[in-house]
């Protein structure tokens, strides 16, 4: 273990979380909404929740946000 976290984050599980596949499906739209200054978590609440709890998809989201932001 390296980065500090909370027990709450370690055990984060929410029924509204849509999972990796469905988040990937909307990830491009989610990122463009963010880049446009919109509240992406209101348009894609289940995906936004998933991105908080899934380290792998969160990493992909960060990379996509950086790449699309440079366009």
């Amino acid at each position: 273990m390296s980065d500090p976290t909370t027990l709450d984050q370690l055990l984060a599980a929410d029924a509204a979380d849509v999972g990796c596949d469905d988040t990937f499906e909307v990830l491009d739209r989610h990122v463009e909404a963010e880049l446009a200054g919109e509240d992406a978590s209101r348009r894609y609440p289940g995906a936004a929740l998933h991105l908080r709890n899934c380290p792998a998809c969160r990493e992909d989201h960060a990379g996509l946000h950086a790449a699309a932001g440079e366009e």
Partner: protein
Amino acid sequence: MVRRARYLPSPMDAVSRSWVDGLRTLGRQHDLTVARLRALLLRAACREVWRRRATLHVAGAELDDLAHQAADDAVVAILAKLDGFRGDSRFTTWAYKFVMLEVSTKIGRHFARASPARIDEVDWEQIPDRLTDLPEQRVERRELLATLRRAVDEELSERQRRVFVAVALNEVPMDALAHELGSNRNAIYKTLFDARLKLKASLAAAGHALEGSRS
């Protein structure tokens, strides 16, 4: 103001349309567009492996090789799924998400080969140093961690225990574990999700309710 009905597809922007047309056509135009797409994805993959380099323990030619593999496989995935692109985002944003996924997959495979031990072993002594919201009272803290450890050992199935220990405690990339277990990211996450629910229930039953979590 004219409102479009929700079921109508979004209009595709001209640049995205030109990408899609170029990839759908045959012959030289197709080959040129594929080459342009690969170059675009390779640049994104190189930037992405560089962004993640701190966690990779890879450098130089191996890092470049990883980026090239990710770009190649992303092109294949994009061509296979091109009919699924409706123009709801820019084509390049849609394409980039495939290369990000491929970079994660390649990093996962590399991690599984380089650090197999971290997948199964857990050092419980280090956990209190990392968790920032443990009770201040030493007795409460010890009881909570003992309950958590007992629940990990006794309440979880073997697969749930393996996934929780690797991903949540040892920060093994989920794609590395997916590679190791012959699974996929979505299935690993579902197992992690179920493990977290069980552990929360065990902690709650022992009087250690967590904040801010719904299930």
